[in-house]
């Protein structure tokens, strides 16, 4: 990653405008050519510096829901449970954490009433209990990190 890559990562966390040529306009603000910006974005995604570049959706605004969930998974079962969650499109994020509740994942569904059946289906498939932690209040979301 060079200095230009860092500038791109920092600047593009704030978003680009949906103009007719969004990459050309974003590149212009960064003093780059459209071609250079596209090539660098492709490489940053390939190298895993960026996990994604694109629209960030708020499922709640389209009538859906998010729900943080946790499970306590025995080590011997971990690979099986991880594979089961990986295969589900409604699992948006999944992290292993160092706690008795060692698997923490986020369900995202485009209908609010789809969360409960998803949880029940995961419990049935894995044979393990799922604790759900729907948000009650959101105090802050969205720190930008410095590259």
């Amino acid at each position, binding site marked *: 990653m060079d200095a230009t890559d860092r500038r791109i*990562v920092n600047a593009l966390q704030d978003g680009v405008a949906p103009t007719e040529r969004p990459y050309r306009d974003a590149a212009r603000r960064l003093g780059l050519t459209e071609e250079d910006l596209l090539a660098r974005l492709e490489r940053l995604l390939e190298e895993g*510096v960026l996990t994604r570049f694109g629209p*960030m959706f708020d499922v709640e605004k389209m009538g859906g829901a998010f729900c943080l969930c946790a499970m306590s998974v025995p080590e011997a079962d971990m690979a099986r449970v991880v594979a089961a969650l990986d295969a589900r499109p409604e699992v948006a994020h999944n992290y292993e954490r160092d706690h008795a509740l060692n698997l923490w994942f986020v369900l995202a569904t485009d209908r609010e009433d789809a969360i409960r059946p998803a949880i029940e289906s995961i419990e049935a498939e894995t044979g393990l209990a799922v604790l759900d932690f729907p948000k009650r209040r959101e105090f802050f979301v969205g720190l930008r990190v410095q590259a």
Partner: protein
Amino acid sequence: MTMTGSMSAHTAPGAPRRTGKARAAERRPPGAIDALDRAIIRATQAGLPLSPDPWATIGAEVGAPGEEVRRRIEAMLARGIIRRIAAVPNHYALGLTANGMSVWDVDDAHIARLGAAVGALDFVSHCYERPRRPPQWRYNLFAMVHGTTRAEVEKKVARIAALLGPHARAHDILYSTRIIKKTGLRLGP
């Protein structure tokens, strides 16, 4: 669900009388998306195409003109369905290898004020009130803290502890030891 804005617009005093058709449209949830919106979301959930005219690329996939796709995206941004079109960095790749979910058992009588204060700290990236799940889980405030080392995370967590004072009865830090999946929204079939 945060639909208050659109709901109140529908019941504004002095609003013109509506036809039967308009009333039927109102019964649609305010956040509802139509088939084309949905197709565009599907086509972009893995990312925006890396081409000079990404709207045309998406349009070819969803069977709509590029300009229509662009206008739909613009409208979804205005409605908050799209928060922004942005880069999502991998914290690990940027050297932020210590990612701690700090969790707090905060006096319910003070959580609104204290949660807002914790969320306002410049190093807290996400902050939510969530339900307790006794007996396994006593914590009701979640604040994500990132650092290059665990010592750095712990220093930041100590600042949260100082801010909460005696209103926090207990806390813990759950470090992520593996990112298994970080895809964001994927609409099901």
